């Protein structure tokens, strides 16, 4: 109950200012433009027989996934770092709330905001469906993958934000960490094939790619759940550390 109340408070603070609307608008402008240009390019040049499947695969991985990678740190940087800088975190700690409740409320509120981003992207399949109906079932996998990937990015951002007072540091460090996990396997020539197999099990890109094809694999779901769990655990430990480190 306390967590729900805190989520409401967090959401109210998001929607009170113009930032959410502007960033969602900018995100949808970027993805919308990429949708229009990529669709045109696929239709014009073909790219093989199975044009729609390839198009959605490419669009989800290279555009939606990548743009989320850029936008998420802009939101997560303020989650704890800003409150710490402004001193409002002290106030929050004085409430009869456990650290877990505070963390979960911040995580859930941020996730709900980003679901708004993803909901906006549902317009693109709807447009293509209006032009030519297709089997929509792969989108279940694609959006499940997008939500899991999104939650992973937020969990990582929340953890980094809990480590510092500076929003710039939080934002840039989150971006670097997320980018690193995204591009782990991009240069296949740089590592041995055995090591590459290990890296591919740690890469967010490789696991998200599977969802983008329209496939739900237990191993990919488990990976993202563990990724989220690990960073939430670390966030909690970081928040708790104020007691024995003597900092805010």
């Amino acid at each position, binding site marked *: 109950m306390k967590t729900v109340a805190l989520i409401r408070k967090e959401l109210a603070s998001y*929607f*009170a*200012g*113009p*930032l*959410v*609307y*502007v960033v*969602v*608008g*900018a995100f*949808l*402008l970027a993805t*919308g*433009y990429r*949708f*229009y240009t990529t*669709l*045109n390019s696929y*239709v014009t040049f073909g790219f093989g*027989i*199975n*044009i*729609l*499947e390839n198009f959605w695969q490419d669009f989800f991985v290279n555009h939606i996934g990548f743009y989320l990678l850029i936008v998420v740190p802009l939101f997560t940087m303020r989650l704890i770092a800003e409150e710490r800088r402004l001193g409002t975190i002290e106030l929050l700690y004085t409430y009869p709330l456990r650290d877990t409740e505070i963390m979960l409320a911040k995580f859930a509120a941020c996730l709900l905001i980003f679901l708004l981003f993803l909901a*906006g992207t549902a317009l693109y399949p709807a*447009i*293509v469906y209006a*032009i*030519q109906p*297709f*089997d929509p*079932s*792969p989108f*279940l*996998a694609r959006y499940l993958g997008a939500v899991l990937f999104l939650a992973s990015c937020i969990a990582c951002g929340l953890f980094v934000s809990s480590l510092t007072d500076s929003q710039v540091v939080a934002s840039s460090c989150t971006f670097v960490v997320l980018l690193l996990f995204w591009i782990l396997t991009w*240069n*296949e*020539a740089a590592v041995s*094939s055995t090591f590459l197999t290990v890296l591919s*099990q740690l890469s967010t890109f*490789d696991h998200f*790619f599977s969802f983008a*094809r*329209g*496939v*739900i*694999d*237990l*191993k990919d779901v*488990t990976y993202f759940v*563990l990724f989220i*769990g690990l960073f939430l*655990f*670390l966030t909690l*430990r970081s928040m708790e*550390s104020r*007691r*024995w*480190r003597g900092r805010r």
Partner: protein
Amino acid sequence: MSPGRSGWASLALGTIGLIGCGLLVLLLTYRHNVRLDLSPQRTYTLSSHAKKILSDLPREVRLTVFVRSEDPRTPQLKDLLWRITQQTPRVTYEFIDLNRSPALARRYGIDRYGAVVVESGGRRRDVSNPSETLLMGALLAVTRDHERMVYFVTGHGERSPDDGDRKAGMSVAKSTLEDDQFVVRTLPLMRAESVPIDATVLVMAGPRKDYLPGEITQIEGYLHRGGNLLLLVDPETPSSIAAFAASLGVATPVDRVVVDPERRLAGGEAVTVMVADLLPSFLVSGTLESPPVFSYARPLEIIEPTATSTLAFLKTSSASSAVPENGVRAESGGRPTGPQIVGAAFYPAPERHGRLIVIGDSDFATNGIIDYLGNKDLLVNSINWLARDESLLAARAQSKEVGREQFFVTETQGAWSFWLATVLQPAIFFAVGFFVFLRRRRA
């Protein structure tokens, strides 16, 4: 220990423990993965045909895959091989980077990226552009010890496996049979003394001209020897073939065509029908995942049917009827006369030791429509049943249908998608943001 030290120690231990447990769970799910394939053509799931071949592999098979780094095809190939090894422990594979191990590639004589060397029991088969179908073919080739020959009779206007015509030819059927490790040959009966002794299955694919009495005698002799025959008859099939079919136990009413207004192809003519009733207890029809599509089919009647040796395994719906060939247009919507038999199978009988399948259409196996629904499976299943290779009867991986996922965007549709996706939707959010900004400023 100071609170700081114990705090760090507890943090480190907890984190290491969690990461260790996480990696263990990840490893377990990697080894025992469960997949839900929602792709339109179930592209990332093995077909039941492949599953059957893999579960019946008689010995170990080793695959060596030559790839290059960052080849976009490699992840697909890895996924395919991973699916194969999930199905059977008898297949093992190794990926070799062609650029990093040129000497090994030279030893194998491979100079092409994406090539797979399939080896088993001292036999080897190379696949240069691997797909599920080609890999299954290669697995059969290296693990099977005998050749199965299919002869297509020619010389009487039959459809030919060497004909590449995109509508009437049967070259796709030939390559599909070759993928199942059949050796496909044509047989001009007129020039042969008898049907070759190595013929596993003989196919008469829609003859248009009469056979000479001597040729019919050759085929009868083959059947008496225990040979197996697939006879595809069309409304144009001549009277000598109809008489031959009758001698085998199946009458083919002259000048009749099957129409089925209920199961006609959407927007198409009434003579192009989806076969509605597939006998589930018979392996050839029971393993089909989609019904076959026939065009201009001839109805069949079984003479003196006996439950032990005869099976009508393909029937049209109860709304169908057999109409005179010249009255197709007029009677396409006429009164139904009930289900029409369009496929019958005959087990060995005292007067015939081999197996026999008669199908009332040859168009279904032509290049034009063989990829439609269950057509390809019906042909290959029939030949495998005749060859007594029931283990291979199953639905194959669907080839990607040209045009199915292709679409066109008109100028107007393109403009609409631009305005909706790039302008209108973001503009709504910007406008709300601006409104909130103004309201806050006023407050």
